[in-house]
Structures are given as structure tokens and as C-alpha cells.
């Protein structure tokens, strides 16, 4: 990577203090997001992928403890004051959430919700805010944008609401959009629409973090993929290289688990044997070792560190390929 990263996360850990003990949701995660790139973060439920970015924006519950560093254009976000965070949130980093049904305030019309940030910041007059709201709705491909402005969230379908939420996030023309499973709650045809909207938004040089568990989504939009397992990043690679040759056995297993229509034997879907470690469970060595086909003796003793190569990095004692040794 040549350009200075937009978002730079180093050794970020998130712990939740629960009555049953400490749960490590994210463990020493490090990654960079370059200006204009789309990084997909893939993992199962509970792998910490959402928590990692919620932590960056200061959105975690009060009982969460974070360590490490997350810098946005050099500015530290972890532990920053609400005022400092508010200077970054909304105007420079925006976020879209999973559930479009809850993402909009039920008692404000679409137009007022869209314009709220601009008006609050004094960035626009009410008339300008309306114009920009209109343009934003057209930008996400909503028909009848003019009448949509006067509607309330319950009058829209899930896909329409999600597009409004994306339009709202893009109102202030941020440099980075974090989309937390933006298509998970939608049905497949609507998913395609929303992905098209996200792809179109990227044309203006918007960097994006796409949190998902759907590898199909990743293939269509991302430049690079980070795969998380049990709170750790196990592999980061350009999307093409990962799909061609996954280095981490978990990444390989994930790819094998994607159902393909071309597959000759339409038999059982392939799955990964076993379960990920329960939250709070202390695992000695690599967390994936109990489910790993390539497990070696060292895997059960030592946590593999993320070894960076030229374009990709992997955290495995016995990777399928060794990116750090490739020329």
C-alpha cells in the first residue's frame, strides 16, 4: 500500500465484562483501510467483526473495555471525547446498520431525517438540506424521491429503508462508510439493489468497510477481504487471491462451504465440523485448531501471529500457502 491509510487499526482488543467473567470479543486486531478501497470483513456471528468497528466509532456498551489504537487520518479514535468523536462521526466516517426496520426514527419524515445532520452542523439551510436530501435519495435509486421526502419510515419497504439509511449516511459526503451487514436482513433481489447502490457510492472515491458473513457479497464489491475467527483476524488478502487460493484453513473451509450451482453432485451442503469457541471460553493456542483439518501439534500450544506478506497476511502455523515467503 502506497497511500497513507485512511483508517489504521493496531492491536485493538475489546473485552466485555459480564457476570460470568471477561469475554474477549476482539483480540489484537490490526488492519488498514486505504483511501477509496473496499475492505470486506467476513466472519461468523460472534467473531467480533461488528464489535471491532463499533469500537472505532465509540459505540460500544459502557461495560466494554477497549485496548489498542484506531487512527483515522492520524487522529486517535479510541478514548476520544464525545465532542472529538462527533467531529469525525457523520461528517467523515458514516455507518449503515444491519436492520433497516430500526435504522430510521419512526417519528420523523424521511426528508427531516436526511437533513438533520446538515442542519445540526449548520452545513446547509433548510432549503439546501431538502435539495441535498432529494439528490441523495435519487443517488440511491429511489423512485419518486420528491414524495419520499414527506413519507415516514413505516411507509417504506425494508430495501427502501436501507437505501434511505445509506443515503442518510452519505449526506455529508464522508470519506469512509462502514456498512455492518447492510444486506443481511433483506431478501435476495433487494440485496442486489442495495449492493448496486453501495458500488455506485464507491465511484466517488468513498472508502468502505463491508462487514458481512456472505462471501457472495464480498466477491461482487470488495477489493480486499479480512477474515475473522473467534475475535482474531486470521487472514487478510486481496479478494481475487483469496478466492483463488485461501491461505488459512478456515478461509479455505469457508470458501468450500459456499454452495455452487455448477457442482456436479447436488448432495449435502458442505459445512465446517464443530463449533466456534463459546464467548468467554479460553482457548489454548489457535482458536480454530479443534476444527482444523491441517492441525499440527504447535497449533494447540501457540497462538499464531498475523504474518504479513507482500499483498496478504495470514495467522496460521500451517497455512495452505506462505504469503510471507512468496516473492
Amino acid at each position: 500500500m502506497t497511500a497513507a491509510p485512511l483508517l489504521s487499526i493496531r492491536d485493538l482488543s475489546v473485552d466485555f465484562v459480564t457476570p460470568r467473567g471477561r469475554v474477549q470479543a476482539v483480540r489484537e486486531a490490526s488492519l488498514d483501510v486505504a483511501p477509496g478501497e473496499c475492505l470486506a470483513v467476513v466472519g461468523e456471528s460472534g467473531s467480533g467483526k461488528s464489535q471491532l468497528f463499533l469500537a472505532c466509532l465509540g459505540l460500544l456498551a459502557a461495560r466494554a473495555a477497549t485496548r489498542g489504537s484506531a487512527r483515522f487520518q492520524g487522529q486517535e479514535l479510541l478514548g476520544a471525547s464525545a465532542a472529538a468523536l462527533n467531529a469525525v462521526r457523520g461528517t467523515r466516517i458514516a455507518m449503515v446498520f444491519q436492520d433497516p426496520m430500526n435504522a430510521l426514527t419512526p417519528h420523523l419524515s424521511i426528508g427531516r431525517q436526511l437533513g438533520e445532520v446538515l442542519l445540526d452542523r449548520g452545513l446547509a439551510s433548510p432549503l439546501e438540506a431538502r435539495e441535498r436530501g432529494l439528490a441523495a435519495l435519487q443517488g440511491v435509486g429511489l423512485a419518486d424521491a420528491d414524495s419520499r421526502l414527506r413519507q415516514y419510515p413505516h411507509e417504506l419497504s425494508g430495501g427502501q429503508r436501507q437505501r434511505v439509511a445509506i443515503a442518510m449516511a452519505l449526506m455529508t459526503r464522508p470519506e469512509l462508510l462502514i456498512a455492518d451487514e447492510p444486506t443481511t436482513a433483506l431478501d435476495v433481489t433487494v440485496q442486489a439493489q442495495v449492493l448496486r447502490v453501495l458500488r455506485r457510492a464507491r465511484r466517488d472515491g468513498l472508502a468502505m468497510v463491508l462487514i458481512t458473513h456472505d462471501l457472495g457479497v464480498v466477491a461482487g464489491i470488495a477489493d480486499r477481504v479480512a477474515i475473522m475467527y473467534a475475535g482474531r483476524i486470521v487472514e487478510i488478502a486481496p479478494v481475487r487471491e483469496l478466492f483463488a487460493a485461501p491461505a488459512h484453513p478456515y478461509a479455505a473451509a469457508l470458501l468450500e462451504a459456499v454452495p455452487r450451482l455448477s457442482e456436479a453432485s447436488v448432495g449435502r451442503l458442505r459445512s465446517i465440523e464443530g463449533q466456534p469457541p463459546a464467548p468467554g471460553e479460553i482457548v489454548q493456542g489457535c482458536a480454530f485448531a479443534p476444527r482444523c483439518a491441517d492441525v499440527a501439534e504447535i497449533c494447540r500450544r501457540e497462538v499464531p501471529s498475523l504474518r504479513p506478506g507482500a499483498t496478504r497476511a495470514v495467522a496460521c502455523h500451517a497455512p495452505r500457502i506462505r504469503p510471507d515467503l512468496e516473492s
Partner: protein
Amino acid sequence: MSEGGLWSEAGRRLRTNRAAVVAGGVLALLVLASLLAPVASPHAIDQVDWTLSPLASPPSLANGHWFGTDSNGRDLFVRVWSGTQVSLLVAVLATLVSLAIGVAWGATAGYLGGRVDDWMMRFVDVLYALPYVFFVIILTVVFGRSLWLIFLAIGAVGWLTMARIVRGQALALRQREFVAAAITLGLPAHRIIARHIVPNVLGTVVVYATLTVPQVILFESFLSFLGLGVQEPLTSLGRLVAEGALEMETAPWQLLVPSAVLALLLLCLNFLGDGLRDALDPRAD
């Protein structure tokens, strides 16, 4: 995009609710009567009609006492409407006071959460623990009796429950994604509370407020009964009912007339509150 979008929508829905419209109309008539009758009537609230014998006259068109007179020969028509006026005034003002404090307090505590929430709600608990009749007695002893003191005393007590209700709702709303979305948009806390929390608790608040109004009317009559409420010759509905109850066997109209007005008032408030709750829910259509 108009500022009153939500409320004009709500008003339109309210007008389609027949029970609420009728209740609103009757309530308006009651309010109008309470304002006009004491002025228009030839009698005054403290004027004894010595021409009567006995002094307590049943309702009659002939002697001009349409609702009859009380045991002291004072015109009940003017006293009932003047009492309605006082009761409504106390109820509405005290409810507004408790609404304003309770919503602001509860929404702030619930939204901010954590230690701020703990301290704010412990303060409410402490005030709750004070026996409030005792509290009102102290207030009246220190400041002397006045109508304003009653607003203040009832409002000061009423906001506690309101704060608890709103805080519970705000606590739940805080977890919703639209609040998270508002935070990621970089909106400051006071704006999120005002625009995303408070409007969403208004439905509950309105319903609770319509329950508070009759409660306050009853509490005021209780205070009046103890001699801490409004003072003679001023009266309130609660007071008239209490006085009428004493003469129930000999002069039943003294109980029935103020009771009927009180019941009508409470009924209308309840219907209107129900209608408002439905109208304020934008999913109603």
C-alpha cells in the same frame, strides 16, 4: 418537511376517531361553561340567597337556581362551574409541570445511562420516599395557602412517576439502531434526546398524562378535604363532592350535580387520551 408534520398528521387521524372527537367537543363545552358561567350568572359563588326557605333548594327554574343551592343557600350552578374551572386549572397546570420535568429528567437519565442515570434516579427515589402529604403540609405552612402552591406541590410530586416511565422507555430506545445511526451521524446528545428519544416516548407520555389529570383532580380534592386545598369561598369539584356527600340523604342534588360534571370530565379526558395515543402512532394508517 414542515415542522408540524407529525402533529398535523396526528390531528388528521384524531379527527377520524369519533369517540375522541365527541369527547373533545364535550370537553370544550365543559371548559367554555366553566369560564363563562361564573361571569354570566347573576349569582356570585359566595352570595347567600336569603329569600329561600329552607336555604338548601333543589334544582328549580322558578327561583333561578338551576342546579339548586347548597346548605348555605349559595347557588350551585355558579359554584359547580367555578369549581370545574379551579379543578381543570390545577389539573392541567400540575400535569404540565410534571410532564416537563419528568420527560426531560427521565429521557436524559435513560439516554445517558451509566452513572448519570444512577444518580438521577436515586434522586427520584429519595423524593419518592418523602411522604408527600407531609411535604405539602410543610409547603403550605411555610408559604401560606395559595392555588399556585397547589400546582407546585402536585407537579413536584407528579413528575417522579413520569420520569420513571420515560426513563424506562428511553433505556429501551437507546438500544435501537436509529439511535446508533444518529450517534454515527455525529449528532450531539441533547439533539438525540430531543429529536430521537422524546418524540418516541410521547405516545406513552400522553396516555400517562391523561391518567394524571384525573389523579390530580382527585388529589386536589383530597387536599381540599384536609383543608389544605383551595379555600372558601373558592371551591373545586372535589370539594363540592365532599360537601355534597355530607348532605347525600337530605339534599342529593348537592352530590349528584358536581359528581356528574366530574365523571363527565374524567370520561372525556380518557377518551381524548386514547384517541391521542392512537393518533400519535404514525403506523396507525
